[in-house]
């Protein structure tokens, strides 16, 4: 009987090969399994503190990022043709929110107050929401498609959303803007994934190629519709939708983008740990108890919603969703419960800074913010392509 010729020396086999570092060796010998499967074994092995991932470091980066975002946004509001001080920014915000104004009590001049509250605040807040939403979308897409190049802009979602948005703007039904942008993003997503699919599997390279085609189609469609309708400064309008611009931000934009971010973002954050299960592929995720198809489509529809809302208020801004997750992963580690909150905050900070550059560098002329994000994003993108070693990029 071959079965009996093997002695079940599981305990000694385990200890023979045990060459673990000192902290792991504290696991008692009882962790070796009994010969028969049985009720849960005493997995009493405890990790020494040194072996634990450092939660302090992550918290440090998160707090730093939030503080930088608050400070950066406040400073961004002060920057512009009219001089505004940080104290005046605070004074204006505090007055409108009914908070106590600082002690020195000089009232903010009405003109300054209007500049802060009606012009710059909505713009900075919209930039923050859009940046957070796009970065979050990119991080989720990269995980759920296991494609390090996935991003709403590169895979055509943003162009699709732009096309949808422009259609309703031309038709004059502006209230349907977010819904149309969402529909456009969703259609573009389905189209990209269907073109890229060969026999049930989607390689990252094919997804990017299909996304390129869909993005070109969406851009061409957007340009065509604006050009054809030809009212006013159509070239500028086209540029703003294709490259993205926050110039038209109002409190309505803040409302649309913040509601989308709050609702969809919360849902994504609550389900974040399911994304971890996709690391080694679908079967692996299924083996870890994940309903693979439902989870993937749930996340992708959420990303389309988020992208649609963001594009509706800002046009198609590129590279935020592509590069920030890669940069932030180095700080947070790959676990999504840590990655996603930090990537949202850093995305917000990034777009606030990029938009401030866009409206000040060639003052009084404004650049579409997508030009700035592309100038920063493309070199990083090239670095990513050059550095990665694996066949997963083929």
């Amino acid at each position, binding site marked *: 009987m071959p*079965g009996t010729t093997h002695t079940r020396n599981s305990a000694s086999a385990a200890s023979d090969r045990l060459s673990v570092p000192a902290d792991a060796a504290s696991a008692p010998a009882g962790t070796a399994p009994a010969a028969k499967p049985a009720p849960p074994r005493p997995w009493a092995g405890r990790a020494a503190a040194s072996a634990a991932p450092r939660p302090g470091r992550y918290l440090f980066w998160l707090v730093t990022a939030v503080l930088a975002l608050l400070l950066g946004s406040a400073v961004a509001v002060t920057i512009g043709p009219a001089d505004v001080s940080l104290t005046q920014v605070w004074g204006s915000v505090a007055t409108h929110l009914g908070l106590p104004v600082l002690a020195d009590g000089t009232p903010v001049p009405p003109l300054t107050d209007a500049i802060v509250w009606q012009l710059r605040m909505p713009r900075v807040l919209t930039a923050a929401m859009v940046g957070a939403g796009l970065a979050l979308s990119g991080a989720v897409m990269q995980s759920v498609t296991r494609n390090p190049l996935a991003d709403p802009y590169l895979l055509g979602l943003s162009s699709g959303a732009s096309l949808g948005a422009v259609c309703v703007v031309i038709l004059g039904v502006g209230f349907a803007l977010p819904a149309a942008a969402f529909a456009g993003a969703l259609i573009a997503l389905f189209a990209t994934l269907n073109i890229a699919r060969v026999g049930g599997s989607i390689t990252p390279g094919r997804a990017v190629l299909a996304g390129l085609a869909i993005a070109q189609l969406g851009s061409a469609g957007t340009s065509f519709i604006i050009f054809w309708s030809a009212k006013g400064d159509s070239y500028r309008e086209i540029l703003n939708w294709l490259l993205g611009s926050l110039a038209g931000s109002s409190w309505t934009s803040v409302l649309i983008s913040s509601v989308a971010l709050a609702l969809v973002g919360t849902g994504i954050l609550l389900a974040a740990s399911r994304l971890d299960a996709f690391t080694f592929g679908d079967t692996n995720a299924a083996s870890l108890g994940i309903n693979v198809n439902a989870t993937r489509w749930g996340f992708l529809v959420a990303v389309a919603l988020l992208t649609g809302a963001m594009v509706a208020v800002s046009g198609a801004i590129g590279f935020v969703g592509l590069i920030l997750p890669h940069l932030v992963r180095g700080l947070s580690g790959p676990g999504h419960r840590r990655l996603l909150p930090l990537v949202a905050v850093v995305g917000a900070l990034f777009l606030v800074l990029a938009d401030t550059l866009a409206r000040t560098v060639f003052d009084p002329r404004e650049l579409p913010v997508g030009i700035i994000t592309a100038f920063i994003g493309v070199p990083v993108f090239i670095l990513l392509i050059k550095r990665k070693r694996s066949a997963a990029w083929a």
Partner: protein
Amino acid sequence: MVSAHGARTGNSRTALDGAAGVVLDEVSLRIDGVSILSEVSAALPPGTVTGLLGPNGAGKSTLLRIIAGIDRADAGTVALDGAVVGQLRRREAARRIALLEQNLAPSVDLSVREVVLLGRIPHRSRLLGSFGGEDDLGVALAALAMVGAGDLVDRRWHTLSGGQQQRVQIARALAQRPSLLLLDEPTNHLDVSAQLSLLHQVRGLGLTSVLALHDLNLAAAYCDRIVLLQAGRLAAFGTPAEVLRPEIIRAVYGVDCDIVPHPRTGHPVIVFSGPDEPPRPNEGTP
């Protein structure tokens, strides 16, 4: 008659309830009218290592996915310790059954610690709950130690050799704390030494295990039982000595072979004959 002899006893519903180990009861699957598996039955006692053998396309991977509860059978059931796998919630199934597929992702940029912690996902509370907390980390380190890979804990995944990656993946599966371990061709792409030590280690775990294997000799050396599939049907089921016989191997794989006892352990060793070699003496002319 070797075919399925072990399964018939577990065939009736009453025997199935509460039976320990894995009981396959007439598992069948058709896809687009093509039969992938048909009426596969077998009973695998707890703590045994079962080799799942068969030519390419015989249905080994599909059967493993059905046993794991990832795919559903059209007809028939799989029961683990008396519970029907297809009726378990996904998370519940993932706490009892761990499946490792062949495909490794060499490019994944995670530390070994993080890879093994993935196995704790089915045990996390649904929404919040700790991620990679002390308890999870303790389980992960213990699992790594069980496969003799404790010293790899701080390495990056993509720097590991194939054998080390396979070992870390098994540790990841063990971190699920399963009572059933399913491995799809775990020895693929491994050198001889890594193959032997990996299978030795799997045996040493004492878990009920099912291993899809291509190498009949590895199956003969390391498995208590063999499930031999041919075109989705159970060709034979039993101990290696019962299943790995020249006439059965010839019928399933279409190759000639001799079975000799291993000089040290006595388990069957299959010695294959190429098509251009003379037929075996005992199979000569009438």
